[in-house]
């Protein structure tokens, strides 16, 4: 079954710059689909083409089986929530929400009851007669959402809707947005550069970079099984190791020589054979840190190293550990009261342990993606 909203080989160029490069996407009815990527990756351009503010140079866009590629924005059954809210400053909150319904020639009584229902949905009935300037950022964003939803769009497009808000408010609105989605059941397309937002609200995510979709999948798939080094580095934090396959251990595992570390065991997430050069992504939280050489179970790795940097986050601590030529980031969760323990210190020698299964072989590797990792400067 083809998707509800479908992008077919969509390309958009601005002069010599290709903002969106032959993107094909299928978005299912009722899902929250995120377009995630750094600024300039083409996610907003893609959204603007869905809204009708921009027209692709090549390719087509279908909504519910209808070609909407060249339809002007006022004739599309989609509505947009803007990052800047874009509320009408000269109209009251109620008038802002009623703007769309009034244009659609519905009966005044119906419009009135719809608008009141929306005000209730976003919990702004008490502020209905105020002007946008009198509201807080979070309230303005809720007006923007109500103003879009009142038109019962087939797809709601959200362009970085929370980017202008502070962290706590962002988290609260994210929960509210999720609740609103559950209530109205409309398809959401959510554009963001914040992987945390995308992971928590989406059913599926498309990770974009330089106008191209790098990977589409459920949040956990993207986090655990990144297809490219860009996805691995952009979603969460990771360590990149490169090495060479030396021998196979049964069907599932191989031995891999990492320069300066020695042989480790890796999972054959993709077909490999001895002699292949491979790249491995190893998430910091998958590594278990211990002072003493750990007892290894089957297919586990242990690597000694010296602590070079420590950052304490309260719930966890990040350690940057020098292992041969590599600087590996490991995370220790604090599940117990910390002040009774002897803390780890700079210069301590520790052991990093992980199961072969916890690393992930990358299909594609680009050196430049290492710059996305949050490593402290080399000292």
């Amino acid at each position, binding site marked *: 079954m083809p998707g509800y909203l479908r992008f077919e080989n969509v390309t958009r160029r601005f002069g010599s710059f290709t903002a969106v490069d032959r993107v094909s996407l299928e978005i299912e009815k009722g899902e929250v689909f995120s377009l995630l990527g750094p600024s300039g990756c083409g996610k907003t351009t893609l959204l603007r083409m869905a809204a009708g503010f921009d027209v692709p140079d090549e390719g087509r866009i279908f909504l519910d089986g209808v070609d909407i590629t060249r339809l002007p924005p006022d004739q599309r059954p989609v509505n947009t929530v803007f990052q800047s809210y*874009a509320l*009408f400053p000269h109209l009251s909150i109620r008038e802002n929400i009623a703007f769309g319904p009034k244009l659609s020639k519905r009966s005044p009584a119906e419009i009135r009851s719809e608008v009141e229902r929306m005000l209730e949905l976003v919990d702004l009935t008490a502020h209905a007669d105020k002007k946008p300037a009198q509201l807080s950022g979070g309230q303005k964003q809720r007006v923007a959402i109500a103003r879009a939803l009142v038109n019962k769009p087939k797809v709601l497009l959200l362009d970085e809707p929370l980017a202008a808000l502070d962290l706590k408010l962002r988290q609260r609105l994210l929960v509210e947005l999720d609740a609103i989605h559950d209530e109205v059941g409309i398809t959401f397309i959510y554009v963001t550069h914040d992987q945390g937002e995308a992971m928590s609200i989406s059913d599926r995510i498309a990770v974009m970079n330089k106008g191209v979709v790098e990977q589409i999948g459920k949040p956990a798939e993207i986090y655990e099984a990144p297809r490219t080094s860009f996805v691995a580095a952009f979603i969460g934090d990771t360590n990149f190791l490169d090495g060479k396959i030396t021998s196979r251990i049964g069907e599932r595992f191989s031995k891999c020589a990492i320069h300066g570390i020695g042989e480790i065991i890796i999972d054959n997430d993709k077909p490999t054979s001895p002699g292949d050069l491979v790249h491995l992504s190893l998430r910091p939280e998958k590594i278990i840190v211990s002072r003493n050489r750990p007892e290894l179970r089957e297919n586990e790795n242990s690597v000694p190293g010296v602590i070079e940097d420590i950052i304490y986050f309260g719930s966890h601590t990040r350690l940057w550990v020098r292992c041969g030529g590599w600087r590996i980031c490991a995370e220790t969760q604090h599940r117990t009261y910390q002040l009774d323990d002897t803390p780890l210190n700079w210069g301590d020698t520790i052991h990093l342990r992980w199961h072969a299964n916890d690393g992930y072989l990358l299909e594609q590797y680009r050196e430049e993606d290492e710059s996305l990792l949050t490593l402290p400067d080399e000292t």
Partner: protein
Amino acid sequence: MKPSRIPLVTTGIVLAFFYLPIAALVAKSFNSSRFSPEWKGFTLKWYERLFERDDILAALVNSLKVALIAASASMLLGTCAAFALHRYKSRLQDAHRMMVNVPLVLPDILMGMSLLLLFIAAGVSLSLATVTIAHITFCLSYVTLVVLARLQDFDPNIVEAARDLGATRLQAFVKITLPILFPGILAGGLLAFTLSIDDYVVTFFVKGPGSDTLPTLVYSMIKKSKELPVINALSTLMLLFTFLLVFASQRLTRPVNR
């Protein structure tokens, strides 16, 4: 620590510098003495005399006509120019921007001369119409800049939001863009009105016979000094009117509410 008196003193000096002459003028307009500066008692006779003079009333009507037409025309043209400057970025628009700015600093005498030469060369006889055209010429720049400033702190997403919610191009312009910009356009119009109504230099060059405006008439009256108190009365009324206009335009140019 005792608060410094310097701000108070400087404010006093500045205000005195600006408003002492005006206060003198207002006082004199109520002074029953015709020539001497000393106070000879309160009177309204100069105001009565003022309203008996048909030439002053005719000039006032002329001034109002010119100012109203010049302000309206420059509101319309200035808004169009501001839209063009705001929306399109090109070398042509860079030149446009510069040429909009030049009349602000161009000496009036130069503008008056050049307009006069143009009218003569084109064979247009001087009349109230030429005065009006001349006034539009210098008002236009001011309106353009006021509207442009308003446009620049206008979020372009707002127009997109209107389109997104189902408004056609025209509906978005009429229901959203125009109402938001209107205070700016009106403020520009008021500014144009005040500039037009007190212009002397440009008007002097391009006015035809019988098309005196208030400023040119006042100047010719000053030569006959027995009319001086009448002019004071007239000036006082114009002053009052100007204050009201400035007050109104300040209220309109307050920042856009977001």
